[in-house]
């Protein structure tokens, strides 16, 4: 089964399939590890619909409508704002056209063992490393001479569209 041409992989997260619904809003689809896909429809009016699709993907098994504030509350709960489980993954936020994201430098990452200046992060990816979290000690506004190490968590800011390039260049 091929998908309609207007579907596209999410800029933010390749696991999310985005699709514009003319006259209504935007549709986002996420495939969980088990069960049918979860679909979120954000209406221009601010209303959010949450659908859990059946195994054949063609009809919803469950559907809920949320107001703007209910959706934010649910989002905060899912994001771990109320209760943080032991394993929390990257937290990302987009405010207007500004993206704030956390990424981890790993053992095999191109960035491991190199300085921010060597990587030419700002010139080559148009993103900025705002802080480094190393052994739970934050280094705020790191100097360009700072050497990145495996295990560092970087807090980066920039435009959402520049994130994939940054991930390729730094995390690998």
């Amino acid at each position, binding site marked *: 089964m091929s998908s309609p041409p*207007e579907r596209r992989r999410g800029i933010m997260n390749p696991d999310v399939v985005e699709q514009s619904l003319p*006259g*209504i809003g935007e549709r986002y689809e996420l495939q969980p590890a088990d069960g049918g896909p979860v679909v979120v*429809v954000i209406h221009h009016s601010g209303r959010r619909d949450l659908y859990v699709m059946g195994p054949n*993907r063609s*009809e919803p098994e469950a*559907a809920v409508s949320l107001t703007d504030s209910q959706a934010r509350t649910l989002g905060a709960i899912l994001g771990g704002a109320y209760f943080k489980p032991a394993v929390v993954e990257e937290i990302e936020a987009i405010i207007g056209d500004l993206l704030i994201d956390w990424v981890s430098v790993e053992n095999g990452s191109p960035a491991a063992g190199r300085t921010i200046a060597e990587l030419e992060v700002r010139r080559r990816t148009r993103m900025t490393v705002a802080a480094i979290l190393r052994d739970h000690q934050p280094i705020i506004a790191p100097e360009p001479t700072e050497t990145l190490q495996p295990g560092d968590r970087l807090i980066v800011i920039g435009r959402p569209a520049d994130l994939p390039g940054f991930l390729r260049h730094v995390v690998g």
Partner: protein
Amino acid sequence: MGDALVALGGAFLAAGVLARLGRRIGLPTIPFFMAAGFIFGPNTPGVVLVEHPEDLELLAALGLVFLLFHLGLEFSLGDLVAGGPRLLAVGGIYLLLNVGGGLLFGLALGWGTSEAFVIAGAVGISSSAIVTKLLIELRRLANPESGLILGIIVVEDVFLALYLAVLQPVLGEANGAADAIAQFARAFAFLVALAAVARWGGRAVGRVIATPDDELLTVCFIGLAVLVAGAAEEVGVSDAIGAFMVGLILAESPVAARIERLVLPLRDAFAAVFFFAFGLTLDPGDAADVAVPVAIAVALSLVLNIVAGLVAARLHGFGPGPAANIGLTILGRGEFSLILATLAAGAGLDERIYPFVALYVLVLAVAGPLLAARSRLLAHVLPDRLLTRTVPP
């Protein structure tokens, strides 16, 4: 003055209460607004709220202006381009089948060529309002085919705008070829001028009416929309397309999002009057005269929509379920068909068009949603063979 207010208030209230009953059983508002006009109009026994449909003429015209103004405001070529060539193909096939079929049907009726063109548009173009609402209420927005359905609606909206632009000059009563050409040229020049403003002058017009004050913004955009709609009508283009173009122009302005929010209650209120006024003019005697053509047109639309649904599903690799959903959802007919009928009445075409379109819309605006909700039944009988691709994509 008091009696006029009582009539108008009664009209709104009757339309609203009836439509609320309809919503309980999942039906759209348009047929109930029309039914309210019919029940409380001069052609049926019982309470008569409005004796002369002409009394509501101006308010109903405002409904038409705001419907098209809002359509222009929401219009986005981006949506069309994003859909890609396959969406254009599906939309084109839909229109070819339905408008083309409508044209042949109109010609076969023998009411005249101009009449056939109006009928082609009225039976060929789906109601954006009904289709969009239907997808939300049937909780089908997440379905894989819903993006395609909304895409087809976008293609139809574009077609409607173009059709309205060329139809009015065609319908105009001209004396001889020279006069016809002069009329057409004048209408064309006006449209080109508006299109140029929409393309390059949107921001400038926006600056003239842009104000942080909602009250002043509302007054200004109403003035602009109604003025240009009237001017358009005066030069032989329809008021509908004039209002649409103003919407297009303001869509480029920095205040577009606020206007979109402010115009909604105006559109809803005056559009209700437009549909109510339509119901007022319905006469059971006329309706009986056009019953047979309406029955044929409804059957034709049903068949052509199911065929279009099958073709769309096949092109996108969908199964019988989505195919049935596509065909039966876009079957909804409403505001655009009625607007075309209003055009025909204004141009002095065959009088049977008005009751024909009214009855056709009434039937499909009720039957469409009922069928769409039961699309599973159709999906069971659609042969799988028609949907399996013979050539892999």
